[in-house]
């Protein structure tokens, strides 16, 4: 079984999610059966990084028109590569970029992408989430032609087993792309405006409530937010007292947030607060009252004195980040 693994670059290196996809690809074939592809205008360094693994080979898909990502160029390049390599499976990390072109690429080959896969079973059977994660669905590829699969971030380990260490041969493939075939003109990436506190788009939030007791104790949670690289937010009483500005208030009269991590410190969980943060992916609550309603919706809870737990957590995070 030959597997084509498409790797993505981030900050000049192969991205972590690409290595996770590599883990998934290794479920489908032995290392030698995996062909890893790196795509771009200059892919030498990436190819070398990929060649550090015991893949069958590494292909540098190189063309000046692949310098910036465009769906048209990537689709053309990979279409030609797949025609040449005719793999049984093509595995991608499920990134924003892959979501932009892989469905079209699969379609061009008469296939449907099995996207956002979290598990690969015997068969192979691919499991993906349905109904916002409340159910799982297992899918099987049927018919002829390659099977296209993209792998959800975090579903597989990025650290490949030591046995995959080795040296793969590097080939270069130059697809034929004409500038006229590229219909979109992408601009330079830019950061979202950061002039005001935008809790709505924050990925990590540390939120503080009445449990903090005094404004003088705020540096404790500020240190925690700093260690995490998180935005600081608060429940209404904190902002009412003027301890933090109103724009940091989360809840029905403040902002609604949906970060990856919402760490509630000393917040009991009044309904006005809960409605503003219930969409968070992972909720952690630290509170001294074991019956505090916040624990009902939390994923992780620590019952304890925040004046002890928060400094300990700050330290633990600093250690973990080193």
């Amino acid at each position: 079984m030959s597997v084509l693994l498409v790797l993505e670059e981030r900050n000049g290196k192969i991205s972590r999610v690409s290595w996770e996809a590599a883990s998934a690809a290794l479920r489908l074939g032995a290392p030698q059966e995996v062909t890893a592809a790196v795509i771009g205008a200059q892919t030498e360094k990436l190819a070398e990084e990929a060649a550090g693994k015991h893949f069958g080979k590494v292909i540098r898909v190189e063309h000046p028109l692949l310098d910036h990502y465009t769906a048209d160029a990537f689709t053309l390049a990979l279409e030609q590569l797949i025609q040449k390599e005719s793999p049984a499976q093509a595995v991608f990390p499920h990134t924003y970029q892959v979501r932009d072109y892989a469905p079209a690429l699969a379609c061009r080959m008469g296939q449907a992408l099995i996207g956002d896969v979290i598990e690969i079973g015997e068969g192979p059977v691919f499991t993906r989430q349905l109904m916002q994660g409340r159910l799982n669905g297992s899918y099987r590829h049927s018919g002829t032609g390659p099977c296209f699969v993209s792998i959800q971030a975090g579903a597989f380990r990025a650290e490949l087993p030591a046995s995959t260490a080795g040296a793969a041969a590097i080939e270069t493939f130059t697809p034929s792309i004409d500038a006229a075939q590229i219909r979109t003109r992408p601009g330079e990436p830019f950061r979202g405006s950061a002039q005001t506190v935008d809790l709505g788009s924050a990925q990590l939030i540390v939120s503080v409530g009445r449990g903090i007791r005094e404004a003088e104790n705020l540096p404790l949670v500020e240190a925690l937010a700093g260690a995490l690289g998180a935005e600081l937010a608060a429940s209404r009483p904190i902002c009412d007292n003027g301890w933090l500005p109103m724009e940091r208030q989360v809840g029905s009269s403040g902002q609604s947030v949906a970060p990856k991590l919402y760490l509630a410190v000393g917040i009991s969980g009044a309904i006005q607060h809960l409605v503003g943060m219930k969409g968070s992916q992972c909720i952690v609550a630290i509170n001294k009252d074991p019956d505090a309603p916040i624990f009902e919706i939390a994923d992780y809870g620590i019952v304890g004195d925040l004046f002890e737990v928060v400094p300990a957590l700050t330290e633990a995070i600093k250690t973990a980040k080193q």
Partner: protein
Amino acid sequence: MMILLLPTLAEPQHFSIAEKSILVVLTAASVYGFWRRFGPVLDRILKSKKDPDFHLAPIGKRAWEFIAEVMFQSKVIRERPLPGLAHAFVFWAFCAFALVTLNHCAVAFGAGFLDPAGSVGRGYFYFAALFAVACAAGILGLFIRRFLVRPRWLGEKLSWGSGFIAFLIFALMSTYLAAFFVADSGTAARALWWAHTLTLLIFLPVIPHTKHLHLVLSPFTIFLSRGGFSRIPPLKGDEDFGLVTGKDLTQIVSLQAYSCVECGRCTEHCPANNTGKILNPKEIVLGVRAYLNDLGPASDEPLLGKYNSQEAAFQCTTCGACEFQCPVGIEHLPILIGLRRGAVNTGTWDDNHGAKLFLALERGSNSLGLPASERDKFIEKNALPLFDGTQEYCLWLGCMGGYDPKGREIILAFVRVMNFLGTTYGVLRKERCTGDPVRRLGNDLLFQQLAESNLEALIQSKTKKIISICPHCVRTIQEDWKEFGTPPAIEHHSEFLARYADQLPQTQNQNQEKIVFHDPCYLGRYRNIYDEPRSIVARAGELIEAPRSRERSFCCGAGGGLAFLGEEKGDRVSHARAAELSATGAATVAAACPFCNTMFRDALASQGAGAPQLVDIAQLAARGLPEKIASKGNESAPL
């Protein structure tokens, strides 16, 4: 024989042709002056849209309200006893003077029918004189209040029209009274007669040009009320979206707009106005009047804009204090909610929080936007029995009872009481918001969807009686759902608790905890329940009253959907009320509404240490009951 010792009313005799002619011409001019202004007003009222749901029946109730509110001036006096009584004297004097004035005019043509010398005439003139004295004193007092005391409710601008009217009334009374002290045939009598007549003839055209138009209109306004407090009329036809333009103003709205006497009682009691919002219920009514004056009832100009502000309309908590206080029968809530309906039903109202609430209810089951599974978890965790048609009560959890941690505590306390009493009850497997907030915000589409789907669920579950801890749910289910079906009977838990209070163990503690009860608007003014919750409070401690209580209770700030509209401008209504409740020195604030409860929770917390604790009356009733009481006859079924 005392009567003979008293002076007689002087009545000039023998009017010349010239005098008679002048009288006729002046009277015609006066009536013309009156009609020139009143005619168009009447025309605008009559040309307004017909009220689709208006019925004169039950006429008895209307008659009774007319007698109480117009003849006995009950609302005028109750709220402001001194100026109210002064006003009542003026009114009663006017009534008494109806005959006197007729006779006065008839005299000029030698057709006087009350003989000042005869016992009937003499008696009646004395009777009227008593009122004239009271009226003169009253109007003098009102003049002093308006121009010297100047309470802020009367507005910042001095109303010179009112001063002039006061002068005319005073002149009418004094010219009448003076006629007792002059001779019949002298020029003095004739001069007084003419002075009285001229005052009358000036008075008449002044009426429709000033707020004293209420003299003519308000008796009709009170008689022709919508019948019911805060009664929101149904929309009729495919083009009725509420009050959008002049074409949507109904006859009742127009009549009310022209009846406003600008007394400011509504403003005085408005929680929004008292906490620095721009809403002033009086100005809303006057805005509609100004619109009618400038554009008329056929105009396509929006009602919200130049004449009334949308922002003001959406600051109303629908507490109903304005409507309750109005002495001339203006129903502010149908107007305010009507303006909101116009804005929301046409999509003109653009508010982030409002849209969030609407979208949450379009897609989900509760106003808080939480997943329904949260309610399931609460039911499961506390093993609340499911309603299966055999239990006595369907316990309506509502959004607060089903999702809000504090509301859930109230439910659990109430459930303990019901278990103790052996009352059978069950909760519905699925419940949607009753639609209270969207109803008051004017979203008729969403309200209809919520009402209909709930009604269907209740019919399917064979519910006969509902019990709820939330006065908003109670009101909406009992009154507002009627537009779409027949809701089951419903009562508020305060009514239930009061009924069974003596079957609960006596828990009153010896140190007599002072408990102040806050009347929720939707329980008090909307449902007329005042004593039942107090009876529960009185069992638990020493009941004390807030300065504004019962019918005059001051809102917590949550009603009318405002609990969902984010931060308010000015001071928070909840903080103003919480401060008032704390200032009573009570150790405990007792509420009977989960919305009041949640508002005060924040407000009292911000008062810091020493703030009274906050409980619901169900929690007071459950004091002294064992923690765990098995429910009787309720097999808790799995979800």
